[in-house]
């Protein structure tokens, strides 16, 4: 692992992003627009907007970065740049962490804009601080990046890559406690829910919503999400082969 190469790679990924203005605009604006949609949907429904918007601030970066990363990594494979990179001094971990850092930074910008819009324009009200919400959003984004890098190893085409969204992301959304409180799920579903990282991200956000100071549960949940992201990055490194058939 080389820090110099890791940061050079992160810089390169960000430069690619910068040349793609439309993607940047979509990344920054879409989550805020979707939150506005939620605002009008739950207009007059009391605290429902606060509860759902808070969770969505964590879910959007996870979903969007998963999708962006799996396509970006697939492009590295199909255009031959990955094969070429693997003949240079770049290590597999350098490449994966470079992606993690680049998209993590992009997610920080996205999270800051979405969170700012939610609090100032849409009147989101939480007991805990907005800064913690952005922090959780960034860690979620890194989890999305890590799972996207891992899943792209199993896709040969863009069509296959996007199909991993319903496979990997949707079950986590359904079981994270957003639709049905986890305590009301049958035992085996709750068991599955316990094993999915997004569950802990949603729980951490709920903690920010319910208490003024950062709770121990919130920090524990955040560590679990970050740990899951590191495990996914290591698995992604293990599936990235220098030699291929």
């Amino acid at each position, binding site marked *: 692992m080389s820090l*110099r*190469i890791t940061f*050079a*790679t992160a*810089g*390169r990924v960000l*430069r*690619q992003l910068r*040349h*793609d203005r439309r993607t940047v605009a979509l990344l920054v604006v879409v989550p805020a627009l979707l939150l506005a949609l939620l605002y009008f949907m739950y207009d007059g429904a009391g605290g429902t907007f606060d509860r759902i918007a808070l969770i969505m601030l964590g879910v959007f970066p996870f979903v969007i970065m998963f999708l962006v990363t799996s396509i970006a990594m697939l492009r590295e494979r199909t*255009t*031959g*740049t990955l*094969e*070429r*990179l*693997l*003949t*240079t*001094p*770049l290590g597999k971990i350098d490449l994966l962490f470079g992606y993690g850092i680049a998209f993590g930074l992009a997610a920080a910008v996205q999270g800051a804009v979405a969170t700012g819009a939610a609090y100032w324009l849409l009147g989101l009200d939480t007991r805990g601080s907005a800064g913690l919400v952005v922090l959780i959003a960034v860690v979620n984004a890194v989890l999305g990046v890590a799972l996207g890098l891992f899943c792209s190893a199993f896709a040969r085409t863009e069509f296959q890559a996007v199909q991993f969204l319903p496979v990997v992301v949707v079950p986590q959304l359904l079981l994270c406690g957003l639709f049905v409180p986890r305590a009301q799920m049958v035992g085996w579903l709750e068991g599955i829910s316990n094993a999915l990282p997004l569950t802990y991200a949603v729980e951490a956000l709920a903690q920010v919503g319910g208490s003024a100071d950062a709770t121990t549960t919130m920090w524990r949940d955040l560590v679990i999400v970050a740990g899951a992201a590191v495990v996914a990055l290591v698995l992604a490194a293990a599936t990235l082969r*220098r*030699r*291929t*058939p």
Partner: protein
Amino acid sequence: MDDAIEVRDLVVERGRRTVLHGISCDIPAGRVTGLLGPSGSGKTTLIRAIVGVQIVRSGTVTVLGHPAGSAPLRRELGYVTQAPSVYADLSVRENARYFAALRGLGAAEADRAIADVGLAAAKSQLVGNLSGGQRSRASLACALIGEPRLLVLDEPTVGQDPVLRAELWARFHELAAGGTALLVSSHVMDEAGRCDRLLLIREGRLIGDDTPAAIRASAGTDDLEEAFLRLIRDNEQAVAA
């Protein structure tokens, strides 16, 4: 002259098909070696084995004294894949600077490599907006950075205009004169004459490994294309007999 690459009894299978049937050859340092053969003959597979990204069935590939693909070689190798493996959504200069950074080099080396391939005027353009020939030169520039001891170029001159092609070949010979080993694949016979040595490959077997002059002499013709044909026929007769 030292050998930069030694290939011994290399067998490669892809799926159930044997793509390389026990190839052995030596590629010298300080020379331009041409790897010629029709499309599908195994050129790219041999190149992938030499740069160390191909899973091989048996045999050995030794590059600059190390097993192909091992860590110490990654600083010594410049590799251009057949498709221009550069980032289409970066400018020429951003691409070159990234590949320079991977070797611990700076902007000056990147700019020099861009000038070497005649792209200085287009260095701020996005690679995706360049013509096919310019794109493959951008890819070549990224391989030239840092003066690697071994350059492996898979069809680098496809789509280049004749003047540029001549300039690129002159540049290859300059690099060879400085001690670099170059392995250049092509399916165009008129490029064969520009090489110091030739490896002729067909259906996964080497059917010629010599200087262009010696190949012309042994086949009894001045035309390399014709010489290649005669070698194929001799080879088939030898197999049949």
